């Protein structure tokens, strides 16, 4: 079952109605609904989700009872390794086998035909978050299995996040959520904007991206550069659109999944970009990888190394290939370089702030950072490392080829710049969710116009979410 389907609409109506009547057992109802949602996709994978949840519950309960620090650490280690082995097998087995065979130059006869369970990267990280939060004492061990299961497998976020940390999710499960009109109205608006970003913008722009990245040798330098920009727009609207849908659905039921994107292309450097992009994953890696590695507490060199390692692991999380690792490493290096630059500039920062032309410098930094991010995203989208080389070479040598300046990339690009700039200025550099007053006729009218625009201008050729594959 996907968000953009009639089945899901019916499912949500039934669930919201049921929530109005079921108060005491609301969490159980949500868990059954979540597992039903997952079951709709593949019942075999539901067993894996349930088994993983069982393991997390067992270990976190034991950790809660355990006073001995060493035993607690042992339990955590067992839990983390178990979850990583499961994730590693399903997601990375073939990648590692391939890589090892390539290193030793032997024929790969160990490859397996493994189906990647839906959302495994997401719910594994939810589970890890619970274990780590209990271990670090951020939360107490949860004794209610239903709450633990819901924390890991809550349906709005299970397919492609956001990865809500256990400490943030379990707090919300302490009380019964009332179904009310305000929540539904607010959630529906967030959901609607998510559909707009995904179906009207991302999927339409994907037409150019697929064509150009599928045969980069065909197109001219300008067309390739525009396609790279198009991909930046596509992936942002696709993933933030999906996140908005998940957040909107959760909001309708009274849950707050936080914000997953915060105007990322208004970042002035790559470090800030990652604080605005896929925030739930970035903060996960910050809290559970970068800080435990030592963060910035163990000297400069170690800080830079930690940044690179964290980003490389983030790259590997995105996909089982060296291309993703390379992509992560590049981000790690740019973050480290920015850290060096930032440390170097520290003494002069106050002086520079007083210099005229601050706004121009900010705009320049935003534009340059966008171009840098767009260039790095080529590593993410290209079909192979060889293709990355071809694309870069053709762009930077001004290669001739077919001119393909996709109209929608230009139109939607301009509209996005205007709309996002408005939000950036209005909310002090931060994103805002649409919040129409649906009690008023004008609010209803704007809502209905967006609905009609989606129906008329949605691209109906494809509907796969880019981040669902991770």
């Amino acid at each position, binding site marked *: 079952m996907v968000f953009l389907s009639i089945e899901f609409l019916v499912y949500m109506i039934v669930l919201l109605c049921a929530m109005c009547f079921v108060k005491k057992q609301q969490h159980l109802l949500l868990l059954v609904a979540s597992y039903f949602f997952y079951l709709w996709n593949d019942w075999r994978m539901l067993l894996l989700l349930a088994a993983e949840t069982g393991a997390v519950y067992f270990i976190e309960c034991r950790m809660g009872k355990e006073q001995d620090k060493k035993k607690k650490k042992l339990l955590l280690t067992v839990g983390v390794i178990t979850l990583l082995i499961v994730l590693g097998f399903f997601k990375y087995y073939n990648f590692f086998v391939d890589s090892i065979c390539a290193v030793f130059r032997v024929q790969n006869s160990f490859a397996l035909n493994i189906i990647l369970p839906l959302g495994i990267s997401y719910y594994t990280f939810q589970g890890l978050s619970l274990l780590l939060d209990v271990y670090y004492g951020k939360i107490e061990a949860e004794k209610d299995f239903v709450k633990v299961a819901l924390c890991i497998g809550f349906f709005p976020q299970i397919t492609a996040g956001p990865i809500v940390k256990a400490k943030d999710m379990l707090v919300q499960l302490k009380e019964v959520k009332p179904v009310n009109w305000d929540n539904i109205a607010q959630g529906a608006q967030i959901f609607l904007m998510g559909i707009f970003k995904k179906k009207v913008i991302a999927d339409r722009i994907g037409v150019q991206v697929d064509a150009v990245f599928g045969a980069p040798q065909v197109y001219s330098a300008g067309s390739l550069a525009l396609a790279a920009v198009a991909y930046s727009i596509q992936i942002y609207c696709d993933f933030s659109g999906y996140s908005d849908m998940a957040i909107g659905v959760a909001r309708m039921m009274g849950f707050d999944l936080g914000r997953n994107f915060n105007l990322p292309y208004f970042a002035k450097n790559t470090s800030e970009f990652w604080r605005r992009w896929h925030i739930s994953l970035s903060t996960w890696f910050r809290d559970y990888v970068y800080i435990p590695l030592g963060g910035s507490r163990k000297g400069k060199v170690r800080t830079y190394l930690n940044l690179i390692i964290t980003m490389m692991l983030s790259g590997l999380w995105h996909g089982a290939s060296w291309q993703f690792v390379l992509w992560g490493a590049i981000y790690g290096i740019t973050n480290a370089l920015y850290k060096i630059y930032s440390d170097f500039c520290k003494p002069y920062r106050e002086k520079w702030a007083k210099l005229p032309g601050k706004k121009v410098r900010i705009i320049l930094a935003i534009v340059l950072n966008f171009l840098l991010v767009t260039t790095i995203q080529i590593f993410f989208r290209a079909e192979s490392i060889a293709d990355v080389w071809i694309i870069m070479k053709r762009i930077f040598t001004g290669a001739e080829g077919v001119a393909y300046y*996709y109209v929608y990339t230009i139109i939607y690009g301009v509209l996005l710049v205007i709309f996002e700039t408005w939000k950036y200025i209005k909310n002090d550099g931060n994103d805002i969710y649409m919040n129409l007053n649906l*009690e008023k006729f004008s609010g209803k009218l704007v809502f*209905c116009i967006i609905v009609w625009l989606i129906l008329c201008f949605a691209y109906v050729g494809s509907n796969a979410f880019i981040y669902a594959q991770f």
Partner: protein
Amino acid sequence: MKKSFFIQLMQWIGALLLAMAIVSVVGFFYYRPVGWLERDKNATSAVWEPNTVVVNFLEGGGITRVDSHGYTNPWGKELDDELVLCIGASYVQSKEVMENKKYTSLLNEMLTSEDKLKVYNLSRDAYLYPEIVAGFSAAIQEFPQTKVAVIDISNTDYSLEELKKALIQREYSPEQTGDKLYAELPAIEKIKIKVKDYFPITSILKHQMSQMQGEGVDVTGATKRTQEVSEAQYGEALDATMKQMREAFSGEIIILYHPSVLLNEDGSMSLNQPKYRDVFEEMCQQNGIVFADMGDDFLQAYEERKEVPYGFQNVTIGEGHLNKYGHKMIAKRLYDLIEKE
């Protein structure tokens, strides 16, 4: 909710309808096909609502006028005494480019300096070779001043059944031209057409539905052959269709064949040649029909100027309908052929 349920409901319905009307205005600039009049006689089985304007920016961008016959030709131009009749499907209709960019207009400009229509566009969506053959005699009767008939095809492979069916000729009736059909329409049908004309949102939604169902993907007119047949058998069936056209018309017939192209990963462009292309050409030669294959022109334009004949900047390049480059190349080729004669 503070307001009563009834007021809220009424407001939602009102908002929905008003929003529909507002979005419909956008439709006038995006996609606005006009009414479609079905008929059982004459060359094509349907024509557009006469004396209207079709707007299409779904693929490419074009504002196309429909004449009193229901075909896509400029208004008010007197027909020349000697016509080049261009017959075909959506490629000839060319709703995807502006009127002055389509090959019939370009050819008209090349052939005459007078303000007359020397090149007439007789086309309909999905009007493929078998149907063209079936309606060929009716087309010539409707436009008896035809000197050259150009038949536009992008595929040469059809099923034997389709070719056999093509031999059943459609009748011509002067009572079934576009304007006369429209005048005879019952009031309810006229209302339906006007709703379509003034609420283009209905057409956009219909288009979205058909895209969702996977329709309208292939514009080449490629049909699924129910069974593989030998070249001899296929040639025989084709020969009968061409003889049929020859009987109806003694002037010059040009079959304009423009194959679809493929942009390859290595940066080259190749042609998608159907199986019976050579048989088609051979049968044309046997029947004194000119077979004009645009393939080499397309490849040359790509090699020299990286121009691709199909596709647009708002869809993909290399797929779909003819763009301005394709139209220009075809117009030039037709001009050379007609001038040579």
